[in-house]
């Protein structure tokens, strides 16, 4: 059982790291602001989400697990809000032709 949970942690955390890598590459390589924002939100939500899911079975007790989920929920909520605000600012900076 323990080996199975370890395997789950390794798979999920590695996929999370992959999403972070993809987000960074997208942030550096994509051509304009809105596409870069799109790459960033994948790293934010999915990358951190997979890391949290991977760490959940290793949490000591229900409270620690709930705290991990809390971090993820907070990041999802703030990520969604902040993406809208950043996109609006980007449009004001450079209005679409």
């Amino acid at each position, binding site marked *: 059982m323990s080996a199975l949970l*370890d395997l789950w*942690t*390794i798979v999920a*955390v*590695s996929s*999370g*790291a992959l999403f*972070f*890598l993809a*987000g*960074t590459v997208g*942030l*550096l390589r994509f051509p304009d*602001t809105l596409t*870069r*924002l799109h790459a*960033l939100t994948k*790293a*934010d939500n999915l*990358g*951190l989400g997979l*890391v*949290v899911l991977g*760490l959940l079975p*290793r*949490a*000591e007790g229900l409270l*620690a697990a709930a*705290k*991990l989920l*809390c*971090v993820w929920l*907070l*990041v999802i909520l*703030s*990520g969604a*809000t*902040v993406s809208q*605000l*950043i*996109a*609006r*600012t*980007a449009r004001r*900076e*450079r209005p679409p032709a």
Partner: protein
Amino acid sequence: MTEFLLAAAGLMVVTVAIGLLRILRGPGDADRVMAVQLLGTGGIAALLLAGAATGEAARVDVALTLALLAAFTSIAFAKAPGA
């Protein structure tokens, strides 16, 4: 397992540090704030991984605080006069 988690935390930090190149290249302020946003999330992930590796529960609290503060940076940017 500890080594794997610590290595993943290090990889996370290196990845988002490379993302900071976007701050140098710009071109707009919004692009620069996005790099900071990625740094915040990557920092949270690294803290959670390091906390799980060392068994220090306090690091999760630090990650929670960082999540809160990272949200405030971008909101402050969007609301700043002239931004």
